[in-house]
């Protein structure tokens, strides 16, 4: 898993590539925590290069969504496809995110 962060005035985009799973989610958590330290409230996850996700990865994204919502922020997802899209649809997260 590789994550890159790009800040603009309006929002922060996190691009997650590869596999977001029980092993790699541990590396994503500090990146997510830093968003709150930096008071970034409008966040987009670019998932166009995400190849595989498991329930741990979904848990991390849902956790970020809840924390941002609690802080008055928003989380958008873009580029979701293939296996990750199948998981998000199964877990009915298409009701929460515009996929």
């Amino acid at each position, binding site marked *: 898993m590789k994550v890159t962060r790009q800040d603009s005035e309006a929002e922060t985009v996190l691009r997650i590539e590869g596999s977001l*799973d029980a*092993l790699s989610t541990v590396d994503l958590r500090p990146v997510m925590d830093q968003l709150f330290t930096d008071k970034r409230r409008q966040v987009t996850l670019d998932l166009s290069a995400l190849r595989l996700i498991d329930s741990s990865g979904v*848990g991390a994204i849902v956790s970020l969504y809840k924390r941002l919502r609690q802080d008055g922020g928003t989380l958008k997802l873009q580029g979701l496809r293939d296996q990750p899209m199948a998981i998000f649809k*199964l877990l*009915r997260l298409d009701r929460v995110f515009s996929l």
Partner: protein
Amino acid sequence: MARLDLVVCLSVDLIKLAIPSSLKYRDLVLRVVAAAAKLVGQKPGRPSRVDREFDDQVISAVGEAFNNAVLHSYRGRVAGDIEIEIETAAESIAVRLIDSGDAFDWTEVPEPNLDDLPESGLGVFIMRSFMDQVTYRAGDRNVLSMRKNYVQPTVTESASRPS
């Protein structure tokens, strides 16, 4: 007298792996399972099928099963191997994960309430949803068995109609 020759093809191939109980081997396991899943539903002499829903669902379920085996079976004890048996047939795949650690009674895992946006406890739900059959047998060797049948994607009427 008329004679009926009935030929039933029951060819099943068995692939066996022994994997150290560590999440760092998750990717290796799923690459093997993905390659095995691709063999199911393939017609002899035809190019590889391009639909990937079956493969994605099998990979998702086995990934969750492997996570559970690593995280629960050998917790607090010396880690052993997880044996993985993959049976591929013409129209189905069966995957068994076998460990010698603590039994994980996932039948006690409650069905998640998706409306609550749960952040954990989704692995068993994913396994059950994406596979046709999931069973668990506890013992000296705990065996989690999963099976999925391949269904050819339906061709839509407009796609099948000659132009």
